[in-house]
């Protein structure tokens, strides 16, 4: 099949790619651009490890064709820190020890940043519900909820 041109703005850098139409955003990020912070967990939209922001909103990169995001602005875990300073959610995950193996963590953090921005971090119950699309096989959930709660308070203050 003919490759198609895809223009993506990722973490503030413009990229011009030539891709087969079937290439997902996840594979484009990891295999073509070397941005391996975004993880491939289930590759079926069930685990949330591949969560990225497209035009500021969290979506699953494994169920998005790169071609669908033509001209869109994409933020991955690599684009969260500013001038060497961790994003408040990243810092809160470290402080609360909100991970064990760490594989789901980039997706958890990208999801949490959006969850707070959406205004869905008002209570532990709400955090759990709006973070339900991110699975953690190590079971670090109590600490993840604590990290999101802490970051939400910091962002609000």
């Amino acid at each position, binding site marked *: 099949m003919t490759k198609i041109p895809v223009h993506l703005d990722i973490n503030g850098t413009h990229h011009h790619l030539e891709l*087969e*139409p079937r290439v997902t955003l996840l594979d484009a990020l990891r295999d073509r651009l070397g941005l391996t912070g975004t993880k491939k967990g289930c590759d079926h939209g069930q685990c949330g490890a591949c969560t990225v922001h497209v035009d500021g*909103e969290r*979506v699953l990169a494994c169920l998005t*064709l790169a071609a669908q995001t033509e001209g869109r602005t994409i933020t991955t875990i690599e684009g969260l820190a500013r001038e060497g300073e961790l994003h408040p959610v990243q810092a809160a995950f470290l402080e609360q020890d909100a991970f064990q193996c760490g594989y789901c963590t980039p997706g958890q953090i990208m999801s949490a940043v959006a969850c707070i921005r959406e205004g869905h971090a*008002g209570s532990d*119950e709400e955090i759990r519900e709006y973070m339900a699309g991110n699975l953690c096989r190590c079971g670090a959930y109590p600490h993840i909820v604590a990290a999101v709660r802490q970051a939400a308070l910091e962002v609000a203050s």
Partner: protein
Amino acid sequence: MRDFDYIRPATIPDAIAAAAEPGSAYLAGGTNLLDLMKGGITSPERIVDISRLPELNRIERLEDGGLRIGALVRNADLAHDAAFAKAYPMVAEALLSGASAQLRNAATVGGNLLQRTRCSYFYDTASACNKRVSGAGCAALGGENRLHAVLGWSDACIATHPSDFCVPLVALDAVVEIEGKQGRRHVTLAEFHLLPGETPQRENALEPGDLIVAVRLPAEAASFAANARYLKIRERTSYAFAVVSAAAALVVDGGKIRAARLALGGVAAKPWRARAAEAVLLGADANEATFAGAADAALADASPSGDNAFKIELARRIVVRALTSAQAGTPERLPALPASPFSSIPGARHDA
């Protein structure tokens, strides 16, 4: 995933012309289609990306009091539209009980109607499935089928329709607006999805090239805003498809039920409107005995398709509980756990 031609048409007529070619599929949010393509369950040769078509992402109030929801309105945008949630609270609750925040940011109104069953034999290309290959047989019939249909199933197929959104929609007499080669037409949601019969591969009223452009709610749909709930039983607290679910809406005046709507999810190949139950409710006293009678009527024709007889009793109980919750009043704020029986709602019975 097999490779394909990728087309991004600029207009609706261009999209319909492109998709009318054999081997074509529309792509909107992609949350179900891409998953099916990865597994080889469906392998389109041509993807027609409609996600940037103008006009299809609007929510419009109609002059007659109805509502027209563009097919590309995303699930999250619809559920979080304050005016929409106020007028049709059980639809918003159903939307927010489905999938995850990430998926709801991508999934669209039209795509939700067209999502395929999650029957594991449908997804497993090594298993027999009459939906995938007509005449191949149904591996689910003698297989792991505790979550399969208890209403409207046939020996050819016992799969369920997985949508939450469609359940309150069918209760509220939603209408699907379809654009095709022959122009625009309207099909009620109740008639849109088809029961399997002998042709389970045929799942809805769409013809090749047909594009869902909008879903309409009639003016009357907003009259239930004060007493409407969607409840959903899942095998884990969140981010799971319904084992059974129910959308219940009432208009109660002086203790008598003046209007009633009831639909079930997770029980059949289509969102299941329970008209016989509505007939029991209409004009009756709004109390638990009436609700229990309605639940019996809703499940009167149910039968297990395998190891799933429990779903019939579970559905009866969720009907009683949804009606009780509706009578108690739509919650002022959507619960933190939408549609969950584990969420504390004033007036709701927790032992039903």
